[in-house]
Structures are given as C-alpha cells and as structure tokens.
C-alpha cells in the first residue's frame, strides 16, 4: 500500500518518554482526588505529580505531563481537586494559580535536575541536586500561586501570602518524602 511508505513512526525512546508523561499526568489527576485532612489544612498529594514529572522526565517531558493534566481538565475531564474541571477552575479555584505553578515548577525542577532536555536516569542525580531542583519547584509554585490568588480575590499580597503560609511546611515535607523515595531506590531503572 502506497500510504504505508510515508508513515513517520515515533521513535522508541520518544514513545517511552511520552507514555511516562501521559501516565504521570493521569497520576497527578489521581493524587489530586486524595487528600489527608490535618486539622484546618488539607494535605494534598498533588505536588508529587510535579516532583516525579520533573525528576523522572526532565524539563520538556515533565512539562508535557503537567500541561496534559491542565488540558484534559480544561477539556472537561474531572481531574482537578474534588473532581472539578474547566478553565474557570484553573483561573479561579483556590488552587488555580497553583495548577499553573505546578506546570512551571515541573519544568524548573526538570531543568535543574537534568540540565538538558534529555532526562538522565534518576539514580544519577545527586541528593543536593534533587533538593535544589524540588525546592526551586516549590518556590516557583508559590511565586506564581500567591500573586495569582491576590489578583483573583482582590486581597493584598501579604494577606494572600499569610493564607498560604501554613501549606509551605507541608510542601517541604512532601519534598523530603519525594527525595526519600528516590534515595530508597524505588525508581531504579526507571
């Protein structure tokens, strides 16, 4: 058949990175549906999606993973917290700016960890590099999320920051857990 001559197959390595990005987008969506209430604040598992996307996939494919997550939510799949969807939620949900922050955070974490587009094996990343990469990602999430929240709600910046401050130690705890997972060798060969 003549048409088959022109089929431009996606190369094997790209297929592997692509399916990981797809599954990490789905995992981010799945983790967003679980949260553990601790007193007045909620311990959300969503940031793990960003951490793993950056560490495992690097800036390009880690970014693709989080972008896919946002896109399917905008398209109407109930992937945001509490099964919500829609562009309105990305703009206005209490985590709206944070969703966009996760996307940029994954890119930043991936760029710092892998210093290039092609991801290295996670086992080759030193602990200090991982700590810097994930800390930068968390910083980016808040640097985008807090001003975004201030703009959406009309609150002064300082007050928006004060509202979000209780979540920062929790996110640092998650960061520690993510690094412990990598160090535990659970992701060897991935």
């Amino acid at each position, binding site marked *: *058949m003549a*048409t*088959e001559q022109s*089929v431009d*197959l996606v190369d094997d390595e790209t297929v592997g990175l692509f399916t990981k990005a797809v599954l990490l987008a789905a995992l981010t969506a799945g983790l967003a549906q679980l949260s553990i209430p601790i007193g007045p604040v909620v311990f959300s598992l969503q940031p793990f999606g960003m951490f793993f996307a950056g560490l495992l996939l690097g800036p390009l494919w880690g970014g693709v993973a989080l972008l896919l997550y946002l896109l399917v939510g905008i398209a109407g799949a109930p992937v945001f917290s509490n099964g919500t969807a829609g562009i309105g939620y990305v703009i206005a949900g209490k985590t709206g700016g944070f969703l966009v922050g996760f996307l940029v955070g994954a890119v930043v974490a991936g760029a710092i960890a892998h210093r290039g587009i092609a991801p290295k094996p996670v086992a080759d990343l030193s602990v200090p590099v991982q700590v810097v990469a994930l800390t930068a990602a968390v910083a980016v999430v808040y640097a985008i999320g807090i001003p975004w929240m201030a703009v959406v709600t009309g609150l002064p910046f300082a007050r928006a920051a004060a509202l979000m401050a209780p979540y920062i130690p929790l996110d640092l705890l998650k960061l520690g857990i993510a690094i412990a997972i990598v160090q535990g060798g659970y992701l060897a060969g991935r």
Partner: protein
Amino acid sequence: MIEVSDLRYRYGDVDVLDGVTLSIPDGQYCLLVGPNGSGKTTLVRHLNALLTPDAGTVTVDGTDVTDDPVVARTRIGMVFQHPRDQFVAATVAADVAFGPENLGLDRVEIDRRVDTALDAVDLGDAAESRIDALSGGEQARVAIAGALAMEPDYLVLDEPLVGLDWPARQSVLDHLDALAADGTGVIVVTHDLRDLHERADRLVALHEGQVVLDAPPAEALDTLPDLGIRDPRC
C-alpha cells in the same frame, strides 16, 4: 511466511533467546508454549520489531522486519496481556481506529476497516460503547479488533485468555477459529492449553530460550509435563 533464523537476545546476564529458528507459513494456527521465563514473549516481540535481536534475523516474506517496522507491524497484528492498558481511547470505535489513523488512511477507509474489524469480533453494536463498561471478554475482543483493523496477515496473541471466565474464553477462541478459517495466521502465546490444543495446527514449545518441541498438538501433549506445562487433557 515468517522466518526466524538463529535468533539470540540477551537481557542482563541471561540468554533469553538462545538460537531460535522457526518458520511459520501463512494461515497456520500455531501455539507457542513454555513455562514462565522460557522466552515466549521475547520471541514474539521480535516478530514485529518491538525488540531488536542481538544476533539472527526475523523476516516476513523475505523482508527483514527491522528494516521496515511499519510493514512488520501492519502485517503482524499483536494483542498483549492486560488489554486495559493497551487501549488508547475511551470508546470502542475510536480505539479500533487508532492503527489505521497512524497509517494515514483516509476517513472512509478508516471507517470501513473499523466496521469490518468490529463485525469480525461481533462487537458491531458496541462501536460507541465505553471500553471500561465492557466485560473482560469483550475487552479482549476490542483489542483483537484493534489489531485486525491493520488488516494483518498474522495475529499474535500474548496470553490473551488470562483472567477470562469460561464463556468469555470460549467466545474469544471461537472468534480466533473463524479468523483462522478465513486465512489469517494465528499465533497464541500461552502456558495454559485448555481448549486450545484441539483448535491449533501446530505446537511449539520453548525452554530456556530454545525450541524444544515442534509438532502437531495431538502428538506433543504427552511430552508437555516434562517441560513444565500442564497436559490440558487432565
């Protein structure tokens, strides 16, 4: 004709395939059996260039599959274990269309192939159904339809019956019989021969990466227990 010649493949320190030579004529119904780790899955993944051999060759009608994976993957359709993880769309017809879309066919031809493939597995009425709402047996048939939409000459099924109840199993096997009767070559990889040995033309057993038995199923059954495979008659 699929021809496998002295195929070798190492993974880590293990010779997963240790010199396999085999030819499978068009239209044959062949069972590929062996205990876990015998190399069955690794062997079939070489047939359509999903794996690249360390040594040896696989050709389909004389063309080395690694030279033209598109032709290999079009002529040899493959259905894997865990059908739920190989679907690309939420609904049946959209999933079956994936292969033909990748071939760049026009919409009319894609629709024709999807209809034909779904008819072949008796799922014509389920075209718009959600795949997750189907039973395990129906999902296995959707996966088969997805391979058939490439209009392959051979259909390779890697453990297609795991986890299916008896009626679903019979239904999948009856559809395979019908395909074989229409001239499609069928290769079933399995470690469980129940209901299968009477349907096939040939049984090939692998052990530690080598072909240790190659005979019509009826003649092969007595030898199977020695190879760690349960005799399906017991």
